[in-house]
């Protein structure tokens, strides 16, 4: 995997307190680790080493196991994501309808590869599993906005919207 430049981890008192709350809520329940990781990612946007360490201390689960779980599931990221998270669905329906070309076009424009984030922290690009909006294939999501029935020509307009 190529080295990804990541900005230093920042933690606010509020985030830290929230995480401790989450840990306290789940501590002692069976299979607590994954729900805690979900909520930790919700709080910080990603799960860097420092956050894993806090969870390890809080739940009493070894770091090795936490790192193993975090890197196993694609939903969890140890790198920060961009302010605008571009995600192109690569489910079969979207693929058959040309999602591959859409992703190439975005890679071209942003100058990053799938899984990476631009240097200014504004844009990141992911290829996602089927999001189930197959009726709208091919589909791109940017944070919570959904763009469907896309053609390659639509991409410039969409990117321009977020660049300004």
């Amino acid at each position, binding site marked *: 995997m190529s080295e990804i430049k990541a900005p230093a981890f920042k933690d606010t008192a509020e985030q830290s307190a929230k995480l401790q709350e989450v840990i306290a809520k789940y501590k002692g329940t069976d299979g*607590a680790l994954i729900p805690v990781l979900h909520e930790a990612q919700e709080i910080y946007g990603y799960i860097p080493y420092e956050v894993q360490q806090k969870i390890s201390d809080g739940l009493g689960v070894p770091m090795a196991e936490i790192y193993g779980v975090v890197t*196993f599931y694609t*939903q969890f990221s140890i790198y920060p994501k961009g302010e605008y998270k571009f995600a192109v669905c690569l489910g*079969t329906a979207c693929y*058959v309808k040309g999602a591959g070309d859409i992703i190439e076009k975005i890679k071209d424009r942003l100058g990053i590869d799938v899984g990476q984030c631009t240097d200014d922290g504004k844009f990141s690009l992911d290829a996602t*599993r*089927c999001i*189930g909006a*197959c*009726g709208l294939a091919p589909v791109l999501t940017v944070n919570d906005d959904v763009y469907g029935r896309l053609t390659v020509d639509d991409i410039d307009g969409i990117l321009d919207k977020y660049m300004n």
Partner: protein
Amino acid sequence: MELARGHVLVCGGTGCTSSGSNNIIEQFEKSLAEKGLQDEIKVVRTGCFGLCALGPIVIVYPEGAFYSLVTPEDVPEIVEEHLLKGRIVKRLLYKETVVDDDNIKSLNEVDFYKKQQRIALVNCGVINPESIDEYIAFGGYSALGKVLSEMKPQDVIDEIKESGLRGRGGGGFPTGLKWQFTANAQGDKKYVACNADEGDPGAFMDRSILEGDPHSLIEAMAIAAYAVGADEGYVYIRAEYPIAVNRLRIAIEQAKEYGLLGKNIFDSGFNFELDIRLGAGAFVCGEETALMTSIEGHRGEPRPRPPFPAVKGLFGKPTLLNNVETYANITAIINNGAEWFKTIGTESSKGTKVFAVGGKINNTGLVEIPMGTTLREIVYEIGGGIPNGKKFKAAQTGGPSGGCIPANLIDTPIDYDSLISIGSMMGSGGLIVMDEDTCMVDIAKFFLEFTVDESCGKCAPCRIGTKRLLEILNKITSGNDTLEDIDRLEQLCYSIKNAALCGLGQTAPNPILSTLKYFRDEYVAHVVDKKCPAGVCKALLSYVIEPDKCKGCSLCAKKCPVGAIEGVVKNPFTIDTSKCIKCGVCMDSCKFGAISKR
């Protein structure tokens, strides 16, 4: 409850929400208030209607007017004309429902719905999924009441066995038998679990049930728990389905409030608690043992079977695991009886199956058909055929574990056994239609890329073997291979099938084997002629300017990023194939259609 004069049903499934149905609901509420109709007309956000291609969809009752591709700007007109003045807005109607100027057809007579029979999806698009009262008004929780007051656990199991229901997650294992095994297992504690980790790309039926009718799952899981002797349940659901997760959460809270979950349900002494666990994006977690490992909080790696989950499952206890759609059939079987259920479907496959139909087809969306319906009926009658007059080439079922059904087998009745006999499988119900522009080698490669990515790495045949398969496919699509490679590919497929630990690995070679079986000539064309017949595999294509169509405008030469196009203005240009990187910009930019790929 106050009675409303009319109801506006707006689809709130993921498809329609993605195309903006939330704005439409807001606009309806605003426009109705402006006209003072807010107490007479009720706006309901429902689950999926199934015809996602035409979303956002709005249905107005009592007339049953089916409006498609509605925009927020259309809403004031619907309110003013239809709801205030009683005149249906014809220009917005789904055109299949229009008979003539004065009449509209009921939805059940439209081609898309005519051949469907809704059991699992019966409430989807009909009730407000966030209201337990509406579910109860439509007969909800009566099956649970019947089971707890009139039936012994063994009676329930016998009824399910008798119905012939088979697992809808893809394997097709008889559901009643699974329940029996779990009931027979010895243990102080048992669990029921639901697999809602719908990972097959292109399949979204489970999501639609969760979004449109979450209470039916809760009710069925409670029935299952009673039958097998469990008191705790988990729903393992994909985190990628936020709407479904949210509605299920609401439904569980409501059921608890009404005493339909918790202690001493219906004063029967039966206790049942239900909780949600979110998946985190790992396809392998759809495999039953991996799913349980994941609920336990670990890397979702499968375990060897036996012991089967019915004996040693979640946290080492006997566990019953069924898929969402399987559970969605339970209440109907209890309410109407196994005899009724058996009248639907084929000899070996009873009931209906929900398919998510997508790809190169006009009516993309969700359909529920009786088992035994042919692929032709799905594609041409329900699905409305292939867009742009293209030819049907194949349909892919079963996702990365399944295979292709070629055009000459389009009349195969769809059930578990017929699909296996032609080298595909039912799978969870994704059905992707492909036309003549789809390269079958490329599709096999697409699925292998998926399985390579999703292989958990625990067993070598899957971890290393699928990677080797993909490498061979890459060689084929880039033109660097020999005929022996095809033989090696086939041999390796069988080795992996025999040796892999879990279902993911054992079925990973299926997309290759089935395309080899029906489209071997396409593989050979790639290898021997170094051509991709469908014009998809870039390395095997070359772009050519047709001299008689080229006007010599030089636009392509200006657009070409590598300067591979040369010529004199007003004379035909030519492409230097040694420089060409096959990006296709020239073809897109040519205004005269003079550039083609071969």
